[in-house]
């Protein structure tokens, strides 16, 4: 039996975390959902294996940059989500290791297909 894929989900919005977690769990992934930087740090350094990251950039400040770099350094691929398309944010996110920057609202089917494709590559 293969190891379960673990997602780290960061969103300052509680309902966004719940919904993302719900979608991932239904797709048979495991989820560590965090709602602030302290929880993020805890998850990154003390929760064991994290395979993929989903980062909702809403409400995030500059500090998120260093965490993204840590994800990049740990070789954990991640997607960033923004409320609207912003080339500066996109550029910055890609520079900090994001695989792609997706504009909300996401289409569940498309998100899963993107994730599945990345998980396939990881395997």
């Amino acid at each position: 039996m293969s190891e379960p894929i673990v997602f780290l989900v960061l969103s300052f919005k509680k309902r966004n975390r719940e919904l993302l977690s719900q979608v991932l769990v239904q797709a048979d992934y495991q989820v560590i959902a965090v709602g602030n930087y302290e929880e993020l740090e805890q998850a990154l350094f003390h929760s064991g294996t994290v395979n993929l990251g989903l980062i909702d950039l809403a409400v995030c400040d500059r500090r998120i940059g260093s965490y993204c770099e840590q994800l990049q350094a740990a070789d954990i691929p991640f997607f960033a989500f923004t409320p609207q398309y912003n080339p500066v944010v996109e550029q910055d996110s890609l520079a900090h290791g994001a695989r792609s920057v997706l504009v909300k609202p996401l289409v569940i089917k498309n998100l899963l297909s993107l994730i599945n494709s990345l998980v396939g590559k990881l395997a």
Partner: protein
Amino acid sequence: MLNEMTLNRISTGIEGLDEILSGGLIAQQAYLIKGQPGSGKTTLGLHFLNAGISQGETSLFISFSEPEFRLRRNAKLLDIDIDRVEFLDLSPTADFFTEDQTYDIFSPAEVDRAPMTQKIIEAIDKIKPQRIFLDAITQFRFLSSDTFQFRKQIQSFLRYMLDRDITLLFTSEGSDRNPDDDLQFMSDGVIELHTTPERRSIRVAKFRGSGFVKGYHELELRDRGMTVFPSLIPETHQRKFTSEAISSGVAEIDELLHGGIERGTTTIISGPSGVGKSTFGMQFMKEAAGRGERSVLYAFEEAEETLLTRCQAVNIPAHVMIDRGTLSVVKVDPLKYTPNQFVHLVRAEVEQNNARILMIDSTSGYRLSMQGEDLVRQLHSLCQYLKNMGVTVILINEVHTIAGGEFSVTDVGLSYLADNLIFLRYLELEGELRKAIGVLKKRVSDFERTLREFHITKYGIKVGEPLTKLRGILSGIPEWIDRDKDK
């Protein structure tokens, strides 16, 4: 073959609206109720559901906006019994705000549509309602990813309801900025509620499979819910009656009128203040009471008690007539009614109480008391309706000329309404103020061309012999013809 009459009609719970809809809604169809916030959409829905309960049907309220407890409380305040109405409360709960349940990661169409649809399906399967009121369908628009999806979803939703023999009323807050033309297109009927600072009105814009009374109709939201006053369309009302002359009970008046005034006609009694117009009209009512017929007097100027006391003083037993149900005196307070609301009162008297004579005292009082415009046209419409219903109408019309001056019959251009025009005049004869009565017009029969002297005594109205030896009566200062010759 199905026709308008054989279709299953159901009441909206609002009498006036049922009338506009030619007897009610056609069952198992979907109707859009559109209007601004506060225009009465939910109140209409509460009446509709209550009417279903009264008919032994099962009614369901699906609310996307207001919570159940508030809707029940509001219904209670309006005295609309919805205790047995089932509720599916899909309004947001307080924790949506307090626990920040907002989200933007996925669209509402993806997150909320499926659970909401499931709840509706479950409720309908469980309750099996015959009537549903859904407030407001606009919510579906937010749960659809685009216009095409929205239309498809609504069409499918309506189909689901109608396949289950449900009659559906759903609301929309369509406006110029948020048009709901697509909903109008998809529904079987459209009822619009309009509100301005001056008035409320209702209009049926579409009713598939049925005729309806076109145009805007007055609407009131009062402490007992919604009341609709359909605009009067006289030609839609007919009652069979014998076109006979009805006597005044005073032989000389009947002689003047060649038998009396005909049933189902409009008579204007014209004259200056205090000349006896109202008493003259009441005389016909007194005689009608003797035949067991009911009359109604709408008093726009005089207090009821003053009028009754005056009648009593001239041998018209108005109190007794009221006690026996052959007379009703209705004091109409200024600006209390619009013309359509007044029509509503009149129709109740005619259609429910079988009133046969109706007197409006006076036409100028009517004009001053009614809110709105085009009052002569409204009065014309009312008289036409009464004529079709075989009701004899007496209009009291005051002219300002006391005696002398130019002779005029009506001050306000009403004479075209009249089948019969009777006038009362003051005369100055040998230094004494006296009164005369004459007939100027009678559409149905001939009439006496001479004038007669007119007295009101404690025994009643007395009318003298024709005044054939006077000339210049209409000038108000007549002269004796024979005396001139003698001189």
